[in-house]
């Protein structure tokens, strides 16, 4: 068996590797320490290089030699780098116009590492972990990257991987990767619009994706480099710091080491609170020799982090608006990334968005329990798919001629017996496309009216039902404490109206119909209705 192609999710905070095992299941590969979600951290102690969780631990004692959050620096000129994220680790310096790090190796010798070198070493560690796990050499990979990764960044990533003997056969967008992994296990039963929200460690990305016949189209993307798990941590840290100060009259914020300790433990507490409703934090000698021990419940945490959690909701609403869609047009929000474990995030979104929108987070039974592994799983699925194609074919497939396709602006559908529009091909369907719907119950002489549909949101105001109570006083008393507010309910509904009439087909004596819609490359729509019993076909073309 040829060595499998692995999928790598390369994140700022953590990375994952996955491959499709011979049983056709996706295996997320654990490194020798058993971490499936491997922290993207490299640390140097003397001659030794530490990676993953071991390196993360060094952040407290050896922060100057520990490199964190380096992914987004790759391929970016030094002047444009956002260095704020790296302040807790090794200092960033400029090397040849690129970002770089200075670490102290054995004998007090300094080593200057460019970010490219750091990425290479990180990828090499991932590669070693994968080889260790699979037991075969790994040479090819599919890597998922954010949608706003520039060409320069992609080029730098290719080069960094090439340096350690990893050939990147395709870079795929993170939201598509997550969706691919999700759809593999929980397929959508129709064409839908999905928001893929990636709440990571230090940044958040969201994308609105239209799924049409299995083809994904990015409608809009949004990025927030300040919104992530660390923002939640910061709130929690501030809370603990205040608490500590009150108890011990000592400020841990002034000491970098204290902060590092607090950060590490606060993160752990946050993760615990995602699973259970109360957690403890205990740090020996946090500041000035004082130990810190406290217990916090989930409610408290959610209150503390309420502001940040609110931003996540806003972020999703923004991206939907950016795609010029209404929340009703969206069928689901797929949560991925480590921060999506936070239960409040899902419940916030559920509250914020209409009921018709499914929140596919770890709390939903129709979604994976490990949203942080989705990206790697998607990359692995794509890798498996690509193993059936040769490089030349893939290169051709990735050419703009193939990728850039026409998309319908408006939905095309038929009119049903009540005169309502039934969409068959939704807006944003890329063509050429063919879609068939079969109506087994259709019998007799029938008219098929093919129209374009305009959709709009209908807002109906539901009047508050007048209370049927006879006693007005009683009613007043009730209204003081009753939740039954006076504000009218606004019910928003999605509706289609008939637009341009395209064609009409008449069929006589039908015994079950199969109607197929086919749009070819040049945009010609062909509608054919076939009688299931007699095989009689009526065709129209526009």
């Amino acid at each position, binding site marked *: 068996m040829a060595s499998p192609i692995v999928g790598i999710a390369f994140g700022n905070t953590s990375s994952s590797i996955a491959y499709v095992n011979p049983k056709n299941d996706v295996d997320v590969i654990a490194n020798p320490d058993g971490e499936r979600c491997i922290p993207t951290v490299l640390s140097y102690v003397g001659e030794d290089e530490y990676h993953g969780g071991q390196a993360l631990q060094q952040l407290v004692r050896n922060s100057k030699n520990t490199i964190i959050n380096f992914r987004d620096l790759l391929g970016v000129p030094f002047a444009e780098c956002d260095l704020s994220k790296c302040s807790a680790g090794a200092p960033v310096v400029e090397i040849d116009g690129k970002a770089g790090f200075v670490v102290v190796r054995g004998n007090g010798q300094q080593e200057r590492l460019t970010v490219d070198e750091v990425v290479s070493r990180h990828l090499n560690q991932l590669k070693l972990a994968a080889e260790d796990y699979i037991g075969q050499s790994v040479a090819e990979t599919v890597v998922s990257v954010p949608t706003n990764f520039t060409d320069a960044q992609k080029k730098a990533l290719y080069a960094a991987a090439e340096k350690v003997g990893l050939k990147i056969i395709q870079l795929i967008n993170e939201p598509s990767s997550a969706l691919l992994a999700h759809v593999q296990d929980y397929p959508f039963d129709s064409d839908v619009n999905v928001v893929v929200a990636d709440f990571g460690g230090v940044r958040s990305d969201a994308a609105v994706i239209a799924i049409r016949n299995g083809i994904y189209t990015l409608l809009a993307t949004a990025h927030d480099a300040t919104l992530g798990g660390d923002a939640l941590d910061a709130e929690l840290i501030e809370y603990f710091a205040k608490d500590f100060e009150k108890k011990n009259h000592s400020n841990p914020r002034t000491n970098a080491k204290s902060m590092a300790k607090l950060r590490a433990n606060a993160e752990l507490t946050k993760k615990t609170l995602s699973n259970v409703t109360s957690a403890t934090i205990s740090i020996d000698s946090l500041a000035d020799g004082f130990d810190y021990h406290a217990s916090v419940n989930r409610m408290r945490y959610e209150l503390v982090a309420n502001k940040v959690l609110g931003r996540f909701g806003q972020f999703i609403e923004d991206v939907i608006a950016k795609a010029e869609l209404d929340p009703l047009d969206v069928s689901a929000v797929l949560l991925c990334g480590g921060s999506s474990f936070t239960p409040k995030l899902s419940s916030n979104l559920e509250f914020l968005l209409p009921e018709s929108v499914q929140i596919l987070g770890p709390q939903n039974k129709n979604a994976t329990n490990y949203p942080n592994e989705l990206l790697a799983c998607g990359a692995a699925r794509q890798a498996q798919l690509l193993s059936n194609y040769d490089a030349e074919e893939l290169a051709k497939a990735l050419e703009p001629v193939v990728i*850039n396709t026409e998309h319908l602006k408006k939905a095309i559908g038929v009119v049903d017996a009540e005169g309502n529009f*039934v969409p068959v091909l939704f807006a944003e369907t890329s063509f050429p496309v063919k879609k068939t719907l079969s109506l087994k119950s259709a019998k007799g002489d029938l008219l098929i009216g093919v129209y374009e549909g305009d959709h709009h949101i209908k807002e109906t105001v539901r009047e508050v039902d007048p209370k049927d109570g006879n006693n007005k006083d009683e009613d007043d008393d009730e209204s003081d404490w009753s939740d039954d507010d006076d504000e009218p309910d606004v019910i928003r509904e999605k509706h289609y109206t008939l637009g341009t009439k395209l064609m009409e087909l008449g069929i006589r004596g039908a015994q079950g119909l199969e109607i197929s819609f086919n749009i070819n490359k040049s945009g010609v729509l062909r509608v054919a209705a076939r009688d299931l019993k007699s095989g009689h076909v009526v*065709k129209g073309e526009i």
Partner: protein
Amino acid sequence: MFTLPALTSDIVVQINAGASKTAPVRRPIEPVGRAFMHHAQRTLRNHTWSEFEKIQASQNVQRVDESKVDPDEALFDTELTDDSLLQHDPRDWKTADLYAAMGLSKLRYRATEPQIIKAHRKQVLKHHPDKKSASGAGLEEDGFFKIIQKAYETLTDSNKRMQYDSCDFNADVEPPKKGSKYDFYEAWGPVFESEARFSKKQPVPTLGGASTKKDEVEKFYTFWHRFDSWRTFEFLDEDVPDDSSNRDHKRYIERKNKAARDKKKTVDIGRLVKLVERAMNEDPRIKQFKEDEKKEKERKKWEREAGARAEAEAKAKAEAEAKLKAEADAKLAANAKADKKKAKEAAKAAKKKNKRAIRSSAKEAEYFGDADKAATIDEQLGHIVDSLDDEQLVSVADKLKADASATKAVLSDAAKALVDAKKLPASMLTYFS
């Protein structure tokens, strides 16, 4: 699902020619997933939808074909091999052929656990009383179904199956009849194969063919001579009554069973020993090996005696040569003797002739004109002739022959020589002096 409106007017196809769709937008699609790869294939190869669907469908059909066929199905019986099983009394299930009831008559002891489960399912689907009653039979006609259930129970329990396999005489292959003509390997191969199922030691060496090496054949027979069988005959035990009222009877039955089992086992071992013995006696390879051995022995003996044989041969040859030589010598001697005699006689004859020639020479020369003295001449000539030795005789005769005219001179010379040699007194040769 929705319903379509009824057709009111007479429309077949009516295109709203004036209308056009809203202009499409060009956007990139995400290059991930199977659907995209299909899209790319269609675009790159310029397939239309129907062409592409055809290709996909043919690929799917292939995939299904590959996965659908269950290799076990072919090994099961398609129908019941023995129809009498349907009438078999389920209380006597032990006497029924359980493998045949399960549709495993081809596989028997070779059937694996999953195969048994599969076969059972198949048989149950076919012979379940509910199914039978649907086709008119009464619900109580479930004898065969009970046998199937018993068979399943027996064959899925490893211990019970071992006991049943021990007594599954249908799986035994009879050795060929004595005295009949048969191909040894074809006839005996299956016999040993079926006996091999009882071996505690696995794998069992196979009979092999005509070209099998000697050591392998020997190994084969050594194995079978020391065959360790797990065959037991518990399955044929008489049922032990489980009523506690008569313990003695129970023990008696148990003892009887044990004795019967032991007896059967002994008989079986004896049978196998005889079988192997017979096979070995009939094995053409063993015969061949024996013959080869004999030949080899003879060849070795021949080689060992090579020295002595060469010596004897040499001796005989020398004797023959000596004999030949003696014979040749004798012959040669005889020849020489004869030659000598002949020469002597010839010499004698020549001498006589010479003497006569000399004697007559005077007469032929008409006594040299002295015919009156003929008597004297002859007399004296006689003396000369008698006195001349052989050589002188020859030379005189030759001289006379050569020149008849000089006869007198020749004779005179001869007479002179004789006188000089004092062989004759000159007085006796007065004429020639």
